[in-house]
């Protein structure tokens, strides 16, 4: 059992997402930083898609009554296990009666804790991801609270060896982010001067509360045809409401929206979006779907190599 001594600012159970129900208005949810999430699962010796904890801004304190094995990736929250520092992007043995304390993120925004065996909560519509607006998934459909208890799923065989990931697998988090954006589906609703403005200006991440809103502040954009019939939208879509300040759609956001989209942040850069802190500076760089696919494939290859690195030295 994992006892939640302090829950952190907004800690939820997430997995690879609740795919298959967007036609019924159910958002995909899932880990906002897919790279850090999957790296944590590989490090912890889990199958892909195992449920992990996603910490936001501040991690809190967890107590493990029985021993086990875990991995921590993503934002550096200055983790300490039984008084000894835990390196970011590492896996480690959890001693029985161990206490893991995480502080405030000093770089990045979201950290992931994968426990060998995965977190054991019921599947809701095929996923363990928490979707707080509807109160489903994760632990009772909400963020963790003081006194919560989490059970760990059954794990087969032996856990991998403890590792500290070499730098080539650890992304660097700054406060200036370059995000590659594929124009479309409504980029033709913007005059070329407006598109240029979007790609040449710096935007500040104004508000990014929970997993619901990513509002930007910067130069206003004018949509040539502001009234758009509601249509499907999803994680990474850059929408421009009539007010002109762009926003980015997040994994818990509604599945259909009535705003024109100037572009989509490419999937390989979702990790950057997840780790950006309110106040950070975002630069959008124009790319193509083909280049984005290559970047995504490369990221997946990195994760494959990481998995092989973790399993090396295993019997």
């Amino acid at each position: 059992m994992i006892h939640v001594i302090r829950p952190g600012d907004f800690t939820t159970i997430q997995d690879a997402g609740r795919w298959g129900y967007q036609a019924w208005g159910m958002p995909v949810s899932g880990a906002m930083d897919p790279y850090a999430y999957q790296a944590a699962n590989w490090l912890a010796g889990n199958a892909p898609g195992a449920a992990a904890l996603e910490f936001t801004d501040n991690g809190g304190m967890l107590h493990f009554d029985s021993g086990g094995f875990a991995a921590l990736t993503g934002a550096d929250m200055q983790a300490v296990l039984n008084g000894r520092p835990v390196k970011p992007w590492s896996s480690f043995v959890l001693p029985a009666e161990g206490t893991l304390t995480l502080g405030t993120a000093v770089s990045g925004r979201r950290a992931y804790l994968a426990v060998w065996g995965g977190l054991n909560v019921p599947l809701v519509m095929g996923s363990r991801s928490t979707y707080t607006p509807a109160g489903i998934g994760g632990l009772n459909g909400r963020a963790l609270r003081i006194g919560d208890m989490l059970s760990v799923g059954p794990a087969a065989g032996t856990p991998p060896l403890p590792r500290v990931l070499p730098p080539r697998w650890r992304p660097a988090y700054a406060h200036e982010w370059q995000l590659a954006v594929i124009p479309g589906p409504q980029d033709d609703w913007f005059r070329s001067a407006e598109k240029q403005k979007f790609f040449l200006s710096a935007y500040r991440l104004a508000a990014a509360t929970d997993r619901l809103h990513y509002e930007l502040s910067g130069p206003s954009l004018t949509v040539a045809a502001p009234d758009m019939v509601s249509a499907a939208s999803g994680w990474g879509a850059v929408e421009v409401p009539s007010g002109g300040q762009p926003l980015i759609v997040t994994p818990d956001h509604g599945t259909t929206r009535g705003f024109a989209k100037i572009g989509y942040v490419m999937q390989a850069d979702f990790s950057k979006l997840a780790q950006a802190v309110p106040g950070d500076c975002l630069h959008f760089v124009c790319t193509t779907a083909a280049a984005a696919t290559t970047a995504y494939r490369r990221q997946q290859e990195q994760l494959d190599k990481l998995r092989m690195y973790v399993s090396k030295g295993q019997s």
Partner: protein
Amino acid sequence: MNSENIRFRTAGEGGIVVDFGQAIHPAGYEEVCRFVAALRSLALPGIREIVPSYCSVMVYFDVLQVHAAVMQERLTAALHMASSLPQPAALVRRVLLVPVCYDGVLAPDLEYVLRATGLMRDELLSLHTAQPYLVYMMGFMPGFPYMGGLPFTVPRQTTPRRAVPPGSVGIGANQTGIYTIEGPGEWWLVGRTPLRIFDAAREQPFLLQAGDYVQFQAVDIDTYFSLRREIAAGRYTPEFMEETL
């Protein structure tokens, strides 16, 4: 199907929007339905999800499994197939009977809507319950049905309400819908239904899907609360009617 009006639009590297235009009308929607039916029957490899809306269809696909250009070719083939499909499956329509209480605190914006439309209360209720409304699409929140074709129009609220209770029946422009979970909303609330349109704990979490119809039925406040009790106790079965056209 006039294929000249259909456009493919890029929605990130893993999404293609098949755009049938920019209008909410049954004819355009029929094209959407035919295309979705064709796509589902083809079960193309690499497709993650198909999300239809009023006049477009989003196709999410796995870029590691299928090349975007190949996906677009296959979608073009699906469009051709859709155009040769016989009349849509809507020969039989499924109508859900939705009891609604249009009274008092359950209808906080009814007065406003009456003033904005110049309708009398009885007129508004008989218009809202006059015929089944087509569920064009679902979105915004889990299981929220977007229904078009109201015979009157009310502009949306400029400041959204922070917490709309689930079951609230809203009107925005010439659309009507049912809020399924508590959350912010900008439509005018003219009534509330005791039905749980979305319930994750149910074997079938969604009562409705795109293509269904909803027939609203006015009930008094006592009936509303007794239905709520029946539903909470699991003794109520939602009433679907099959209508042959």
